[in-house]
């Protein structure tokens, strides 16, 4: 039946059906108490919790941008693959079981109680809000991209629809609604990611499993995808795909910042408060990583296939003969062509096609071949094509000529990824405000009912702020998100780690450490990204570490400041040391 419908109708059908599913689940699993709202009552089975964590975790950046970034970065893109999975090892081994034993609702809860200080709680709330809002900005932009391309509505309309859906199930259902919606969203997004990947892998390597196709040799030519890619790219003046251009130090720093950042992200940590037992927290981390690994081991294969396909399709093609997807994306402004030698053919090679970073289109004007007119100044190299990396996954089914329903599926998957992460983030933001800021810091006499009401209001407010970011997007999806990790690694992770593994760490040290790590990391990123972007080259970086990786250094600064400054004050009081002893054992208490 799907063959007779056009892609547009199918896309409406698929996304509409998935939205109805999410809303249905939200109504079925409404939150009745604050415990439901914050931690889904604390009895989500570990496998389902792992699935929800995976959907919560894999954002628009993972689904839409990551394979595209790897496709253009080659080996250098490995930092995202290792960085966004390795953090789960740290979570399972170092944090999750102990935070579950602690048994409260939020990250600031732990930091406030462990460091026996309202100030520590407030600093943790500030870190959480900065990290979560940075992260949520990327999600709303992802929603906008998907809507504008596949439903051919304005980005604005797309963001409003997205806000409406998230508002509905995050505000109504709280953590309980979100968790069960995320289970559905995981199924949608992984199916949407894998189906085109299977198709393309089969097409290009005769091997249906992308993970194997990625490393297999082509039976006909005897040459593998990676070898072909290396050859093609070198001919076009790019570095080899399997060899990167980042320094070893920078690779290590970025990977580590992403890993430790993962382990410090509040919306991930809070997932381990929702399982029934300490052992379930560990197990749940394992399941989450399995569900994540399915996508993360497919992404590099998709990236390699997409890059070859893209080069094959555009290189030396007459503009008149380019496939429809090329022009669709050009219409949206994510592809641009500047015909430097006036031969009507596309030429793709290394370097930027013009002197500016982004294409500047001259209104709706068209040139002789029908391409959009640009006001950019052509650069000296022979590259004529600008392509936004964010489109690779979304365009992949079209590039590989897959049927319309696969394209519709990818649109639904991209929305599931963006919405599930946005909802998870909005929830920790609202919990931080209603529980930590109001109930625990300023209005201790709030009743349960009032607190639940406050949680809903702050969730609603957070949706508005996220929507504002979606309408006024700060930058690239993945780039914005990558900074959130650095900030989390430098502020939250060390405080949690020391809270568990040091009995004596005192509040003075912990607060100073968090502030120092956050200030240093934020300052370094702002210096190179906002204030002096022209200086953002490897030669100017401190120790050769880029702004993306600086959170790793920020983490050490946090630890060092905490330990040294904490020396000036005595060890934590006895009852706090006893609390730490208690969270280290899965059952019972020692004191």
């Amino acid at each position, binding site marked *: 039946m799907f063959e007779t419908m056009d892609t547009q109708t199918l896309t409406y059908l698929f996304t509409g059906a998935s939205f109805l599913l999410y809303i249905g689940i939200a109504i079925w699993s409404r939150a009745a108490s604050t415990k439901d709202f914050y931690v889904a009552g604390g009895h989500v089975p570990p496998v389902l919790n792992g699935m929800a964590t995976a959907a919560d975790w894999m954002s628009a950046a993972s689904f839409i941008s990551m394979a595209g970034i790897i496709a253009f970065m080659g*080996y250098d893109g490995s930092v995202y693959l*290792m960085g966004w999975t390795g953090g789960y090892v740290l979570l399972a*081994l170092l944090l999750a079981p102990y935070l579950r034993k602690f048994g409260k609702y939020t990250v600031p809860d732990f930091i406030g109680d462990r460091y026996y200080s309202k100030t520590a709680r407030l600093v943790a709330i500030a870190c959480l809000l900065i990290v979560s809002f940075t992260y949520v900005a990327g999600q709303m932009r992802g929603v906008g991209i998907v809507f504008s391309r596949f439903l051919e509505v304005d980005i604005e309309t797309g963001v409003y629809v997205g806000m409406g859906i998230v508002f509905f199930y995050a505000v109504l259902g709280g953590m309980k609604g979100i968790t069960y919606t995320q289970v559905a969203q995981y199924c949608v997004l992984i199916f949407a990611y894998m189906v085109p990947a299977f198709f393309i892998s089969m097409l290009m390597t005769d091997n249906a499993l992308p993970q194997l196709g990625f490393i297999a040799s082509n039976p006909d030519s005897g040459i*593998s995808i990676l070898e072909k890619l290396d050859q093609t790219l070198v001919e076009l003046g790019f570095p080899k795909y399997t060899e990167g251009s980042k320094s070893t130090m920078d690779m290590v720093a970025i990977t580590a910042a992403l890993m430790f950042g993962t382990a410090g992200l509040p919306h991930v940590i809070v997932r381990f408060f929702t399982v029934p037992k300490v*052992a379930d927290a*560990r197990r749940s981390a394992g399941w989450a990583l*399995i569900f994540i690994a399915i996508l993360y081991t497919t992404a590099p294969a998709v990236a390699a296939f997409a890059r070859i396909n893209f080069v094959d399709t555009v290189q030396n093609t007459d503009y008149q003969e380019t496939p429809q997807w090329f022009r669709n994306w050009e219409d949206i402004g994510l592809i641009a062509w500047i015909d430097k030698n006036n031969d009507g053919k596309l030429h793709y090679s290394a370097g930027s096609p013009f002197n500016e970073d982004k294409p500047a289109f001259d209104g709706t004007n068209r040139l002789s071949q029908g391409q959009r007119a640009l006001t950019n100044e052509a650069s000296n190299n022979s590259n004529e094509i600008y392509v936004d990396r964010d489109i690779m996954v979304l365009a992949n089914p079209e590039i590989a000529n897959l049927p319309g329903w696969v394209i519709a599926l990818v649109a639904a998957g991209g929305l599931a990824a963006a919405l599930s992460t946005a909802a998870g983030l909005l929830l920790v933001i609202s919990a931080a405000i209603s529980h930590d800021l109001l109930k625990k810091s300023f209005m201790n006499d709030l009743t349960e009912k009032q607190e639940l009401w406050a949680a809903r209001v702050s969730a609603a407010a957070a949706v508005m702020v996220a929507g504002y970011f979606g309408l006024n997007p700060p930058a690239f999806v993945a780039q914005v998100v990558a900074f959130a990790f650095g900030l989390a690694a430098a502020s939250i992770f060390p405080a949690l780690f020391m809270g568990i593994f040091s009995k004596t760490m005192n509040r003075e040290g912990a607060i100073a450490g968090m502030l120092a790590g956050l200030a240093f990391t934020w300052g370094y990123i702002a210096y190179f990204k906002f204030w002096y972007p022209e200086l953002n080259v490897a030669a100017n970086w401190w120790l050769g570490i880029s702004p993306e990786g600086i959170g790793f250094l920020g983490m050490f600064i946090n630890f060092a400041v905490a330990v040294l400054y904490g020396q000036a004050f005595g060890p934590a009081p006895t009852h706090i040391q006893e609390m730490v002893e208690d969270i280290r*054992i899965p059952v019972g208490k020692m004191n």
Partner: protein
Amino acid sequence: MSQAEKRNVKISPNLAQAFWRANISLAVKLLLVWFLVSFGAGIIFRDWLNQFSMGSAPLGFWFAQQGAIYVFVLIIFIYVRMMGNIERQFGLSDEPFNYGETPDVKQLPQYRKKPSGNRMVESALDPIPKYDPNNTTDPDGFVKPADPLNDSAKDDQSPEPHQQKESPKKPAKGDVFGGDKDDDVWGA
């Protein structure tokens, strides 16, 4: 014993310390593997490893884009399994029985008597009686009995509410797994 009661069970400091050492030792070993496959094989030793290959991919590149992720998954499940064993050996598990297993009640006392194959755990457990001669450790296990209704540490003399104390080697079936869903092998 219900989950709520279990939370208030009193654990001897020596047991907790030995348990913590076993836990740290396991975590450190697994984190070493974590470091070696990602930062090691994927980044630092990549150039050298690239002379080998996995399928047709250079090995260092493969580790960075695929292999490390597979090993991460393995590490977590090994940790889940081994931590579960350690917790049961120390009588500190918060689970009714091993995940995915049907509990064999007859096996349990034996299991507790020979905590192992794990020499680290055994040696860590040895000094416990010496450290704390007043500890009313239950004869079969290591857990200091406690009155779940009373948090005070001085209350050691109060009658032991848990049936285990009287017949540690033959736990009644209902005591370990039956009846109350929250029951588990704590102290069994």
